[in-house]
Every structure is written in structure tokens, then in C-alpha cells.
């Protein structure tokens, strides 16, 4: 069964169409790049999959179920913004995740904190935006979820941390789990992608295996992206 399936997904903000009849299927065990320029509908799509936005039309199923309390226990979502409670310390937010998500691994979280030289005693309020993003990514990746939905996971961090994040995603690979990465920094993630989805003005223009797209167009995904989204 597909881990994520959507059909005719449409979202309007007033008169503006953010998603236009998007139909997709994501199978388990795939790393999928959700690629498109700013305003193409990537964030809207991920928010709908997490139940944070109500679609105007269409349906989404996560592991065969509509987004709700049940799907949230198997989806690990990294939003593009900072959502942490500022008054907590890093250790307290780890306790928070551990309390609510049965699949959260404290050992994994502390190990990743150590690798990135972050202290669990630091108050989140005192951390820089980039460091907060790293903490968020650690929290999201320390879960043993069936589906990881990562919205711009490498957009706000330095190149060294970017490599670490991509390595973490690969290391966490599990044949049962899928990762959907939304970004416009294609060159950095191209090598790890199994499948690619191009979103343009809320519609899917390409959805295929990365190798298939490279062969068919005789160019890299980054090159194809530049061609499709040429200004």
C-alpha cells in the first residue's frame, strides 16, 4: 500500500490557486524530492498532508487513512518555520517529544546533538535561527516514523550542517519509511533522491524516478529544474 496518496488535491487562498488538482502516490522506502520555486505550492502540499490546512477539494491518505491523530503518530514533519516553545531548554523539548511520540529515540537525539556540538542545557530562546532549525531536524529525525515530510530542511543551515543533515537522512533509511524533501536547492540533494516531483504554480509537471528523468532528458535533475523553471 502507498504510504501517501492524494487525488485531485486543490487549495485556494481566496481567489489564488495554490494547488490545482494534484494527484500523487508515494511508495514506502523512497526518498522523494518535492521540487519547485518559491510559491509553487510545496509548503501548502506538506501542510495539507499534516492536517494543518484544509484542502478546498480532493483527498489525502497517509498509510490509507485521512490526516488525523492516527496519521500523526506515523508522520514526522519538519515545517519551514520554527515551532519550538521558546521557554524550554533543548533537554526539555526532547522530553516533550519523548512523552508524546512512542517512536521517539532519546539516545538518537542526544547522539545527534553531540555530533552537532549542541548543548542540551541551552534555552531555545537563546539559540540562533540556524541552530533552532538543527534542533528541530534532530527532533524530527530521532523518530522511527513511516513517513518523514521535511519542508526546506537545508535552506537555513550552513553547508557543513547541510552535509550532516543529508547524511542523517541517508543513515536513517529504512525500507518501510519514505522521506519527502521539499527544496529548491537541488544540486545539494540530487544524489540522494530516488524519485522527483516538480511542482509549478500548484500543478505537478513531472513525477518520476530520478534516474528515469535524467536518462529521458539527458541532463541532471538540477539542469532539468533550471530549464523547466527558467524565468
Amino acid at each position, binding site marked *: 500500500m502507498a504510504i501517501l496518496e492524494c487525488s485531485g488535491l486543490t487549495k485556494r487562498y481566496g481567489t489564488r490557486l495554490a494547488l490545482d488538482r494534484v494527484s500523487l502516490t508515494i511508495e514506502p522506502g523512497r526518498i522523494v524530492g518535492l521540487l519547485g520555486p518559491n510559491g509553487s505550492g510545496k509548503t501548502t502540499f506538506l501542510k495539507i498532508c499534516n492536517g494543518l490546512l*484544509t484542502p478546498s477539494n480532493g483527498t489525502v491518505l497517509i498509510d490509507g487513512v485521512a490526516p488525523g491523530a492516527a496519521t500523526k503518530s506515523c508522520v514526522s514533519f519538519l515545517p519551514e518555520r520554527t515551532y*519550538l*516553545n521558546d521557554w524550554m531548554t533543548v533537554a526539555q523539548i526532547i522530553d516533550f517529544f519523548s512523552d*508524546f511520540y512512542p517512536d521517539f529515540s532519546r539516545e538518537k537525539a542526544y547522539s545527534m546533538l553531540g555530533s552537532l556540538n549542541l548543548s542540551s542545557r541551552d534555552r531555545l530562546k537563546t539559540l540562533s535561527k540556524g541552530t533552532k532549525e538543527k534542533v528541530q531536524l534532530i527532533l524530527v529525525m530521532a523518530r522511527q516514523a513511516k513517513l518523514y515530510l521535511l519542508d526546506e530542511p537545508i535552506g537555513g543551515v550552513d553547508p557543513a550542517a547541510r552535509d550532516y543533515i543529508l547524511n542523517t537522512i541517508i543513515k536513517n533509511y529504512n525500507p518501510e519509511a519514505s522521506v519527502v524533501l521539499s527544496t529548491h536547492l537541488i544540486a545539494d540533494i540530487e544524489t540522494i533522491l530516488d524519485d522527483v516531483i516538480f511542482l509549478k504554480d500548484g500543478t505537478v509537471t513531472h513525477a518520476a524516478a530520478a534516474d528515469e528523468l535524467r536518462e529521458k532528458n539527458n541532463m541532471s535533475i538540477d539542469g532539468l529544474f533550471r530549464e523547466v523553471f527558467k524565468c
Partner: protein
Amino acid sequence: MLGKLLKYEFRSTGRVFLPFYGALVVVAIVTRILNSVKPSGRVGLIAPQLIGIVVTALMLGAVCVIAIILTIQRFNRNLLGDEGYLMFTLPVGTDSLIWSKLIVSVVWFLLSAVFGLFAIAILTPNLTREILKGIGVLFRDLFGHGAARDFSTVIYLLSGVLSVVWAVLSVYTAGSLAMLVNRRRGLAAFGFWIGITTVAQIIGTLLLTWATHIDYSAWWNELSYGTREVLGSLAVCATALVGSAALYIITRVMLKRRLNLE
């Protein structure tokens, strides 16, 4: 999961309220000590006494203001703002999210009233004993007049708590209805709140007018005094309960079916 949500909600709000309650009690005690010192012609001692009374009065007002602001802020920031991205991706139901906020807000409102009264009791010399005596008299007056009267007193007290619940839910409903608007949601929430309270007042007035114009004297006069008391209290409680339930349902539908985080 509701228990876990309550734990974090109390922890988050308690770090504001508890130090404030502590400060309120300390200021009240210091003021009382200053008040107990006889000025004996030294004008200089009157100033600290006055300052103490003014500061305590300001803090009493501030406790109420903080309770209101935190009720609005916790709902808007923690559920409808950036933190909502975390709260709505937790594997918990919408009901648990609303109940955790509601229970904690109501508890802080009631505790603020208790600490406010406590500070006044400390501040006013010789009044503490009188107040405690007064509470004893109040309970004696309220209870001990037969089962029916005692029951209706409990129902009236419950209605008082329900009116706090209604007030908190009116803020939640206004905030969640503002998700229907794409811009200036804060302003829209305030507009919705004005609308909700206006509609509630109109419905209340219509109900009262209707109740006073019905000729139910025939069966009402046949009822015993106790039964009338019980029916009266139940009608007040039922009105508060129905009003609160209506607001809860609207908030729930908005958060479950119309969630639109910016």
C-alpha cells in the same frame, strides 16, 4: 494524552502565574508590616505604607489582566500561531487540545481570584479573622436549609464556574473563527468576539423576556418552594451549559475541519 498536555500547559503558564502570586503575597505581607508600624508623628513612614497599598492594588488588577492576556495568548500562539505546527502534529485529538487549554485557563482564573482574596485578607489589618468568620457565615447561610436549597446552591456555584468557562470559550471561538479570514486575523478575532458577546446578550434578553411573559403560574404555584429553587438554579446552569457547549462545538469544528495555519 490529555494528562500530558495538561502537564505541559500548567508548566508553561505556571512559570508566569506562580512567581506573580508569590510576589503578590510578599508585597501584601510587607505592606501589612509597614501598616502595623505606628507613624508617631513621623510623616516619612506614611509614604511606604501608601506605596505598599498602591502596589498591592495594582498587582491585584494585574493578576486579572495577566489571566485574560494569557488565555488569549496561549490559544493564539500555541495553537493558531507558529507553535501550532507542533501542537497539531502531535498524535492527540482536537478535543484534548481544546480541553487542556480550557481547563488550565479556568484553573488560573479561579486561583487568581483565591490569591487576590488572600492578598486582601493579608493586607487589611484585623480583617482576616472577620473574612474567615464571614466565609463561615456565608456557608452557614448558603447550606443547611434543606437538601433542595443546598442542591440549588451547589448548582449556582457550578453556574459561576461555567460562566468563566463560557468567557474563556468565547475567546477560543473568536480566535478560531478568525481562521476564515486570510489577513489581519487578530483584528478579525476581536470583531468575532464582539459579535459573539453581542449575540449572547441578545439571546439572553430574549430568553428572559420569554420567561417572564409565559403564564406558568398554574403549575408553578403548585410546586413546593424547594422544587422552585432547584428548577430556577437548574435553568441558570442549563443556560450557561448550553452557551458553553455551543461555543465548544464551533471551536472544535473550526480546529478539526477548517484548520488553516498561516
